[in-house]
């Protein structure tokens, strides 16, 4: 006995409602239920009513996207030159990362995955400090403890990155929950990939948030790949957004290469969360344009053809044509911006490489506990003695 109201009832679990897709998205049985929300048309135009940002802010975010792209390119180059040990970037996902981060309030916490370096910079992490983290040198805010690209920046409420997939999701829930318990208005933002939706912590994080209506915006960067595993082998669900149904929360699907759509959808999700209407699972549909990281060679598992169609959807190109259409950037202005960004990055690399290559020996034992226990104290003496006795302890290639 199906009642006419059923669809309407179900809609409350889905991202129907506001932004109707600007065009019919790729055929999918559930596009109607979880439409791919877009603002930027392919011709670079946009319905003014749907544009969430004044030109000034859009231009500023455009520069951030350029910085993100150039930074990724430069750091990959440094890694190839052996100047940094590892790098993982956001090639093609700039609109998803910056659009979501920019749509939150300054007091909102961000729980990154590992491709959201641009969000850390947006939150005020100095570029030089970021590069120091990549070098793990004496200027590294993490004291050389972690691998490159595992930055944390508390002043910007940008949490600490760990490699294990999805573990940050319940953290984001707990932090927002704590704020509510303490009577503060804070909505947490957490990033993860579509591969992470298979992990335990995705399940518990969203379930806890659903039951307790915790104000968190769950951003899934669906970039199609988990290292070598395509989305289809990650889940049989046609969309990530529909996974929200399992938790009785709202799921939405947005074009992750459309900065304006990402900003608009994130703002709505944040507003609902702040209003006590509960969390949102926001699927940003994008694509991983390069290898998983500098350790990866995608040629081994995916043909170039699958990447091609996405090149014309490049989020930077799409935003640029919008800005050009509005007469906000042209050849010259763009070149100037690019040069400016390039200089900023070069300067940061210069400054960062000026620090001592290694933090002092005692940092190895710093922060295991608030105060070192006897084990750390004795072991610091042990390693000091060992280094003194044999320089090879610190430098395997030392001769003599």
């Amino acid at each position, binding site marked *: 006995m199906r009642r006419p109201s059923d669809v309407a009832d179900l809609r409350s679990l889905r991202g129907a409602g506001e932004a109707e897709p600007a065009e019919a998205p790729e055929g999918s049985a559930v596009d109607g239920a979880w439409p791919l929300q877009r603002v930027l048309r392919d011709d670079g135009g946009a319905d003014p009513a749907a544009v969430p940002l004044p030109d000034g802010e859009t231009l500023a975010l455009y520069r951030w996207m350029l910085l993100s792209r150039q930074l990724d390119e430069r750091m990959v180059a440094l890694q190839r030159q052996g100047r940094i040990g590892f790098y993982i970037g956001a090639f093609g996902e700039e609109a998803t990362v910056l659009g979501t981060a920019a749509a939150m309030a300054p007091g909102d*916490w961000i*729980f990154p995955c590992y491709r959201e370096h641009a969000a850390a910079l947006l939150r005020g992490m100095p570029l030089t400090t970021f590069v120091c983290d990549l070098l793990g040198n004496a200027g*590294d*805010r*993490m*004291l050389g*403890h*972690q691998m490159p690209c*595992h930055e*944390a*920046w*508390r002043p910007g409420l940008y*949490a*600490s990155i*760990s490699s*294990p997939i999805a*573990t940050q*999701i*319940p*953290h*984001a*829930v*707990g*932090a*927002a*929950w*704590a*704020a509510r*318990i*303490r009577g503060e208005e*804070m909505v*947490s933002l957490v990033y993860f990939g579509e591969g992470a939706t298979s992990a*335990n*912590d995705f*399940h*518990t*994080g969203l*379930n*806890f948030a659903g*039951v*307790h209506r915790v104000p968190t915006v769950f951003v899934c960067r669906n970039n199609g790949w988990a290292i070598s595993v395509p989305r289809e082998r990650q889940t049989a669900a046609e969309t990530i957004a529909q996974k929200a149904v399992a938790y009785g929360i709202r799921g939405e699907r947005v074009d992750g290469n459309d900065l304006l759509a990402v900003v608009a959808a994130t703002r709505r999700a944040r507003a609902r969360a702040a209003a006590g209407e509960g969390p949102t699972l926001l699927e940003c549909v994008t694509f991983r344009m390069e290898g998983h990281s500098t350790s990866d060679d995608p040629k081994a598992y995916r043909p170039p053809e699958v990447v091609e169609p996405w090149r014309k959807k490049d989020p930077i190109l799409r935003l640029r044509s919008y800005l050009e259409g509005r007469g906000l950037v042209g050849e010259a202005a763009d070149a100037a911006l690019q040069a400016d960004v390039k200089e900023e990055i070069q300067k940061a690399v210069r400054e960062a490489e000026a620090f001592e290559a290694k933090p002092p020996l005692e940092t190895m034992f*710093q*922060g*295991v*506990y*608030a105060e070192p*226990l*006897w084990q750390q104290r004795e072991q610091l003496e042990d390693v000091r003695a060992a280094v003194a006795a044999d320089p090879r302890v610190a430098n395997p290639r030392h001769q003599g």
Partner: protein
Amino acid sequence: MPTYNIIQAVNDALRLEMRRDPTVVVLGEDVGRFGGVFRATTGLHEEFGPDRVIDTPLAESGIIGTAVGMALNGLRPVPEIQFADFIFPAMDQIVNEVAKYRYRSGGQWSCPLVIRTPYGGGIRGGHYHSQSPEAHFVHTPGLKVVVPSTPEDAKGLLLSAIRDPDPVLFFEPKRVYRAARGEVPEGDYAIPLGQAKVTRAGHQVTLVAWGAMWHEADQAAREAEAEGIDAEVIDLRSLQPLDVDAVVHSVTKTGRAVVVHEAPRTCGFGAEIAALVQERCFLHLEAPVLRVTGYDTPFPYTLENEYLPRAPRILKALRESIAW
């Protein structure tokens, strides 16, 4: 002074600290309206409400994972894992997140929380309501591990644990949850973490134990006395930080040591005690450090008395150590 059992002492400590510090919250399965399957959180939901005494869905990884976020953002969560046997779904959050958060962020954040969990055998719980997983956590730098044996210690150590800047695993000996009764000071007092207690002075052999097995060690020492064996009994109370000086001081005097624990022998914390003692008291040892432990099997149901390192087996080891 009131006489409490360990459950009441834990409950008293939680209530006291929640009154004193508004940032303390309790979360876990059945801890709220029900007050916990062992009733350790009884009355807290009524007094502090659902915001601070939280019934969670059935997921240990979610309990610890959300507690981490709470700790990062200014709360002092005291999550409960219903039985220590069920801590393993949260192992990744504990080992890779809780333990490393301060270190990996270069000290920008810390993750102060106390994971309370009833552990150990002797209640006919079989494989999954009897385990003693403390060694896993002692082997994880960044964590502290506390195991009280008496109501007075349970309250004083729990208060210290909640106020500690580092994450603490707080293992409660459920075998003596109700059986261990004693006078507990009213109001606020803290027993510092990392101070072992010499519960019985002796000069012939040092007996090291913690939690429920301390009661068996104490019993064995009494029986040994009747045989003219004078054992010194040390209740470690905290395994990390470990009061190694107390152990070394005692063994330096006695020249003999027996360590007792419920967990399987191989790679248990007794191995660490034995390793440390022979490193630090080598010239004083008159016999090898002996281990009286659970056997290397899953925890059995019917034969749990035979499995547990109770007084008779400890007494036997004391004799062997002396006779060595």
